[in-house]
């Protein structure tokens, strides 16, 4: 399989994740979309690393994975706080700053 195959796969997953982030109303649903996008990025990084015989890509995707876990933990903590305060996690209803 050529590098292009993996990159196209990554791009497709990225697009699907983007679609999820844009269209979901639920905050958790949006987070899931972000997860997909980050995954797509990882596929790209690892594919480049493999086809250039450079470990940098793998190191980077390791960092990405670690950061993603932190991001998810933090994001969900925020979601839980929002739920406590507003009793909903629908993004459209979180309009406290709208004035």
């Amino acid at each position, binding site marked *: *399989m*050529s*590098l*292009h*195959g993996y*990159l*196209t796969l990554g*791009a*497709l*997953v*990225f*697009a*699907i*994740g*983007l*679609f*999820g982030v*844009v*269209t*979901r*109303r*639920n905050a*958790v*649903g949006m*987070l*899931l*979309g972000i*997860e*997909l996008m980050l*995954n797509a990025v*990882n*596929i790209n990084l*690892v*594919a480049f690393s*493999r086809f*250039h*015989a450079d*470990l940098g890509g*793998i*190191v980077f995707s*390791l*960092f990405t*994975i*670690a*950061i*993603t*876990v932190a*991001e*998810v*933990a*933090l994001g*969900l*903590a*925020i*979601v*839980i*706080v929002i*739920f*406590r305060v507003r009793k909903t996690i629908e993004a*459209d209803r979180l309009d406290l700053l709208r004035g």
Partner: protein
Amino acid sequence: MTVETVGFWLVAAVLLASSLAVVLTKNLFHAVLYLAVALVATGVVFLLLESPFLFGVQLLLYAGGVVTIVVFAIMLTERLVGERITQTSRHVVNGAIVSAAVFVAVVGFLLQAGAPAPVTERPDQLAGLGRALVGPYAVTLELLGVLLVAALLGAIYFARADD
């Protein structure tokens, strides 16, 4: 058709189908389960790319960790028992247009670039990774540690019981 090619198409199909299910399915819990499938499929893609170590990390942190946390959040924020948790989507057409545009742009770049020659020599990945993490990327690793601590503190601060 080598084993790798067959495997790639299979995994790609699973990955794309489950990703689509993540963003399209109505039930939030099902979406998380599909995400787990997608993450495992991504791990298998890593295997195909000869990075078994990353496969392990992916399973351990993503499928074992992230999915668990998300499920926990869902259980905390939704009234579950006796009720179906549904989530609707908005601006589906616009979203599809945007993501399709992004995809086309990326693939456009890809088409212009030439494919690099596949490399044949394979260094010992595990040892190389270890050396890389404490060698050229040592500072990054430390920064990552700081970031994780900060994130942990932040999560605890946000999610603490308000007393």
